[in-house]
């Protein structure tokens, strides 16, 4: 983080309460909070947790799809998937940078991920068994991510909001390429159609769960909404996802694996069957199909890259020393 010209100088002697009242008043007027502004510690902590876990999700999210890069069915599909996975890395980096403006070092966040202290989206603990899973992830998982992320472009913390603008622009490519994969498979041979249906069957419920626990069981909702770092509740976002995705499944000629799903004329929304929250909490706790594999992949990448990070720094230091002595 950059320094401020009067760092070390004690500013106007405002008490904590006055500062907090001023902070809340600015939030109410929709004035964005920027890195060097005073902010309540819980706001800072909540943001660091939210942004860094979002970043971890992007980074771990490269793994399930990366699994298919070498086996993409055509050169074009391979180029598209490479670009998509590269974008996920980029999203992770934008978000880590945004979190670092809150005075949290990058390495501390990485360490929290690798030691299992920090969470990432539980959806990435499911395996990608067929090529259709690449389609289903783009269509459903990135589709759900967009619904989650678009409101965040208006959140109260400037660097986070700006990172989300960039991310959302790129996510729509992700969702469309996924839908395109599903469309081709759904309109292909009967085997391809069955493959698309199988992917939808496996990814539907985990995608619905991506929005997090129901509002009745979500402890962070209220405070985060007051701080404008969450603008809609989990259930509101989930409903929006279902309402927009069900017609798309119909257009694909695929069926949503929920026998209780039906349009409700009164609420003007879809009613859905019961969500198996036990599964969600199991996966979060580390008992999903791929939790161990995903985390190990990140640990290996970090450990195997250590000598590269050290060598680059040693090289930079040596050159800097040479320039100083030549000057």
């Amino acid at each position: 983080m950059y320094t401020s010209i009067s760092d070390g100088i004690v500013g106007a002697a405002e008490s904590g309460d006055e500062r907090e009242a001023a902070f809340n008043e600015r939030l109410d007027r929709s004035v964005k909070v920027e890195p060097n502004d005073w902010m309540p510690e819980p706001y800072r902590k909540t943001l660091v947790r939210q942004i860094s876990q979002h970043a971890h999700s992007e980074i771990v999210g490269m793994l399930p799809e990366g699994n298919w890069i070498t086996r993409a069915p055509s050169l074009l599909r391979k180029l598209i998937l490479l670009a998509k996975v590269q974008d996920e890395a980029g999203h992770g980096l934008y978000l880590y940078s945004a979190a670092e403006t809150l005075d949290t070092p990058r390495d501390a966040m990485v360490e929290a991920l690798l030691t299992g202290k920090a969470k990432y989206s539980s959806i990435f603990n499911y395996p990608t068994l067929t090529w259709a899973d690449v389609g289903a992830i783009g269509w459903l998982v990135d589709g759900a991510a967009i619904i989650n992320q678009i409101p965040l472009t208006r959140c109260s913390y400037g660097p986070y909001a700006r990172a989300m603008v960039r991310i959302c622009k790129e996510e729509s490519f992700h969702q469309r390429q996924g839908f395109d994969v599903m469309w081709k498979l759904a309109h292909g041979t009967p085997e391809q159609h069955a493959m698309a249906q199988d992917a939808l069957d496996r990814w539907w419920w985990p995608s619905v769960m991506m929005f997090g626990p129901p509002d009745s069981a979500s402890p962070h909702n209220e405070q985060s909404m007051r701080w404008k770092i969450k603008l809609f509740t989990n259930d509101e976002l989930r409903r929006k996802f279902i309402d927009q995705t069900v017609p798309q499944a119909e257009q694909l000629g695929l069926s949503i694996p929920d026998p209780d799903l039906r349009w409700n004329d009164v609420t003007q929304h879809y009613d859905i069957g019961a969500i198996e929250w036990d599964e969600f909490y199991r996966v979060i706790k580390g008992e999903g199909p791929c939790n161990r594999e995903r985390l190990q992949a990140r640990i290996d990448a970090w450990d195997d890259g250590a000598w590269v990070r050290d060598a680059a720094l040693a090289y930079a230091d040596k050159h800097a020393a040479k320039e100083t002595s030549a000057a």
Partner: protein
Amino acid sequence: MSKEWPLWEIFVRSENGLAHKHVGSLHAADSEMAVQNARDLYTRRNEGVSIWVVKSSDIVATDPSQSEALFEPSEDKTYRHATFYHVPEGVKHL
């Protein structure tokens, strides 16, 4: 754990004729790597034609708690704006 690479602030000129604009930050061991990483991270879709990288620790900023003292005095100097002045009817090219 190894030492962290320094942080760099990245500025991108989206097209000639426009100023460089801050787009975010990244870590790199030196300036050359910062430019390469900035190109990969911030210009994957024709976002720019030129990149500046500046070590974050080299940037000095105003303190937000001083912003009233620094910036508010200009708020009541409305006579600095053209709109402050009444233009009599019929007077042109003013």
